[in-house]
């Protein structure tokens, strides 16, 4: 079957941080620093391994704490391989993120590219996350429908809304 998922979806984030470029670089590349900020509130980073060289691996696992209620104990790993490293300037890795135990339906494959630049005594970061694939073939198809045909789905929404108003 021809995959419907044809194009990557790109997420881009820009931030300005009040810290020198070397500190921001370390925060992304030193496990003892990264684990301090990687997980959202009420999660902890239980595993963090970074082999900072091209071809080296990065593994970060965050785990939901007690305050996350029904999610408590759930683990969300991200495993990747560095494809580019220019110290204090840019890094890139190809990675997979998933919910442990639900790999089939939750895996997102993505390429993260991080670019750092100095701005006076601040540091700008430009992070782009290109989603390249979703787990199984079924999901790729489903996502293709969402993204590749967004216009049609917008049309569908309009249609459903109109139909609602037209109903007796």
């Amino acid at each position: 079957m021809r995959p419907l998922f044809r194009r990557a979806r790109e997420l881009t984030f820009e931030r300005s941080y009040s810290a020198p470029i070397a500190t921001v670089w370390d925060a992304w590349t030193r496990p003892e620093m990264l684990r301090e900020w990687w997980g959202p509130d009420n999660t902890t980073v239980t595993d963090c391994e970074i082999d900072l060289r091209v071809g080296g691996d990065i593994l970060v696992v965050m785990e939901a704490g007690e305050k996350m209620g029904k999610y408590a104990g759930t683990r969300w790993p991200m495993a990747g391989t560095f494809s580019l490293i220019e110290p204090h300037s840019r890094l890139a890795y190809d990675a997979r993120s998933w919910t442990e135990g639900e790999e089939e339906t939750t895996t997102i494959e993505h390429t993260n590219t991080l670019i750092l630049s100095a701005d006076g005594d601040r540091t700008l970061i430009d992070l782009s996350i290109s989603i390249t694939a979703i787990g199984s073939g079924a999901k790729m198809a489903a996502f293709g429908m969402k993204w590749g045909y967004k216009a049609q789905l917008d049309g569908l929404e309009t249609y459903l809304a109109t139909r609602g108003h037209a109903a007796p």
Partner: protein
Amino acid sequence: MDATTFAALGEPTRLRIVELLREQPRSVGDIARVLTIRQPQVSKHLRVLREAGVVTVEPVARRRVHHLRAEPFEQIGSWVGSFERLWDTRLDRLDAFLRSADGGPAATDRRDGRPDHT
């Protein structure tokens, strides 16, 4: 995210039916004719799609017309949305980390010396 949605869409013929219904709502007979599939087979696939909440049916004049429901597709989109929000939150936390005393000597200096920088 609902695994039954993916299971329903994972079958090639059902996906073709869904693609067809994206254009416009259709009756079983319409679908069978356009896709050149036997009508009982179309009915069988439509039942799976209905049970997964992907498709719904309603009478229009004397025909039973099938159309897509928006919800499952919105769910799929919201899953990716949660991935995007996670990264957004993460980058905010990095900001908090860099401002904290634990953020290393440089960040500590920055905090202590804040009046110089703001």
